[in-house]
């Protein structure tokens, strides 16, 4: 096991896949000469040259469409968004073209493309630079959506995403890029898309959380452990398709569930998971499902407000106690 930063794990995944397959290339704003706005692609221009690591003008709609066309013509593009907030300028290319061309062409054209970059809140950046996009992209048939919470998953899932023959939305995080973690040394380390990870086994309550929220979940589980409660933590890792089977199996054991989700609450990932649990495991629930999300407002700038906006560890802890009727 090597200890890598999250950004280094992403870079390792891209580098390995580009070494393995000439059709893979990386394109985006500042990915080449600047070495990546967040240094994810540092050194890749030097290794692969300007044919395969390509700077773009600030033209998300244009270069995402270019990626779709290149994918239709037999290449396997990795398109980097500096952050997914800027993907909205290109959302037409993602939703109308990448996601639907296979279907509309009766399966004639594959669109093997990865759109990757930072997603979600990253501090005092105000409303336009703090959007969690997972529920927006997950609602679109034809897309797969992945949101890894740690370097090991980031590497194994990004490699799988690049090899997948479907368009994949790969959601990273500005505040996790520097996070270190052990990453498998296994040669050709692939984590299957659509498989959740049981991060901690437990018996009293199931906490479901992805991306940054996963780390809140682990802290809450530790506090509960100190109180004498055993929480099971599940990181879905892939948002679409969702590994609901693993979640349902856990709930059959714990009979209680709390979801931590950094998205705004309305029609969010937590809404969807809640529906699927009641659909599949209603009779196993001993308490209503609770969720902790961002507030139902645009992200504010002021320090105290943005902190208040985010899902709170204390709220998640209290929610767990509440569904266990422990208070």
């Amino acid at each position, binding site marked *: 096991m090597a200890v890598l930063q999250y950004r280094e794990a992403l870079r390792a995944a891209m580098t390995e896949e580009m070494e393995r397959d000439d059709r893979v290339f990386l394109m985006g704003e500042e990915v080449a000469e600047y070495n990546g706005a967040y240094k994810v692609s540092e050194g890749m221009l030097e290794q692969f040259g300007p044919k395969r690591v390509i700077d773009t003008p600030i033209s998300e*709609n244009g270069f995402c469409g270019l990626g779709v066309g290149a994918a239709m013509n037999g290449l396997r593009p990795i398109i980097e968004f500096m952050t997914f907030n800027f993907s909205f300028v290109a959302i037409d290319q993602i939703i109308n073209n990448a996601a639907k061309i296979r279907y509309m062409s009766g399966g004639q054209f594959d669109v093997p493309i990865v759109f990757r970059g930072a997603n979600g809140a990253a501090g005092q950046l105000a409303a336009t630079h703090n959007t969690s996009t997972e529920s927006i992209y997950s609602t679109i048939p034809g897309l797969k959506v992945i949101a890894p919470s740690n370097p090991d998953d980031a590497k194994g899932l990004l490699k799988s995403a690049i090899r997948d023959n479907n368009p994949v939305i790969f959601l990273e995080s500005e505040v996790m890029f520097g996070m270190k973690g052990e990453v498998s040394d296994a040669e050709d380390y692939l984590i299957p898309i659509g498989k959740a990870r049981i991060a901690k086994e437990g018996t009293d309550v199931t906490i479901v959380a992805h991306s940054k929220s996963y780390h809140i979940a682990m802290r809450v589980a530790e506090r509960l452990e100190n109180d004498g409660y055993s929480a099971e933590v599940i990181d879905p890792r892939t948002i679409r398709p969702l590994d609901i089977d693993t979640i349902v199996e856990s709930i059959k054991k714990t009979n209680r569930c709390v979801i931590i989700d950094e998205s705004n609450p309305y029609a969010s990932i937590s809404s969807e998971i809640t529906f699927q649990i009641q659909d599949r495991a209603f009779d196993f629930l001993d308490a209503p499902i609770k969720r902790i999300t961002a507030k139902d407002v645009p992200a504010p700038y002021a320090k105290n407000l943005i902190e208040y906006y985010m899902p709170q560890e204390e709220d998640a802890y209290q929610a767990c106690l509440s569904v266990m009727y422990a208070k």
Partner: protein
Amino acid sequence: MAKQTKRTSTRKTASKKKPVAKKGAPDQNVVPDSLSFSQEFDTYPAGKYTHKKLGLSEDQVIGMYRNMLLQRRFEERAAQMYGKQKIAGFLHLYIGQEAISTGTATAMEIGKDSLITAYRDHGHALALGMSANEGMAEMFGKVGGCSKGKGGSMHFFDKENRMFGGHGIVGAHVPVGVGIAFGHKYKEDDGVAIAFYGDGAAGQGAIHEAANLMSIYDLPAILVVENNQYAMGTAVHRAFGQVEFSHWAASYDVRGSVADGMDVFSVVKAMQDAIASAREFKPTMMEIRTYRYRGHSMSDPQKYRTKEELDSKKNEDPIIRLKAYLLENKITDEKTLDAIDDDVKEEVMASVEFAENSPAPDLDAIYDDVYDSREYPFLS
């Protein structure tokens, strides 16, 4: 090349010498005493070219006539089938613009070069070699259709002939076309990608981004605005400050040209030159001036133009024009042309029968081709 493009732009000279200004202020930050710009554009007027000059055989020209007629009769029949409610959704007819699709296909190396267009796509598909059967069945929503009944009139795809669609969102496919060109260059397969869009689409930001990207990456791409004068009911002069669309090329530092879309030979020549240029990684923005005889779609009352305007344009009909050329030059005779007409009618009628008899998709097929595998756990 009909004529070499000449440019006298100070910026152009500077940028060629220094493709990327790495450090320090680039020259253009210093404001000169005066600044002027001029660029010549290649033009391809009607009546200027003969098939011999273009290197086309008599058989090829007869084949082009047949292909244009096939598009015309196919769409006339489609309109009739729409009236009978055999075809649903939107139906946008290409009638009047057939010289563009046929002229382009004539200049392309089919199977090597690529084409992408918007939703007025029947003509391009038939010109590249899609069968009338596959086209008609697609509009009937049957499994025998080119997209197995999943796409309809606006989404004709034909991978074998490198027809990359049929796209419904105005302008959105043009960056995709530039990406197809990017693929050709990356794979070093000598292919060229041609992206067609209407004058209405020229108002979309996607066109600007696509043109800029094909310029900076020196892609084997041709962006073609089929200027049929109207975006639905909005005449071009109501929508654009600069209605000379070829002039837009100057802003992207690419080759600009304009062809008469009522003369198929003008289109062939314009495309031959643009393709040759693209193979050397010099992209073109081309305007082809044409006219749409029918409404925007089947529900268009056409109150935005006069009957006189429409009638005057019909005198320029590209099919009638080519027919006259064939007869005047004694390439063929009336009898042969009548036989072609009968043959085309028969092919189109057979396509209607094929479409009628092709089965509707199984309900279970609704889950096919969403992802590359049926193993995907769809919600129900």
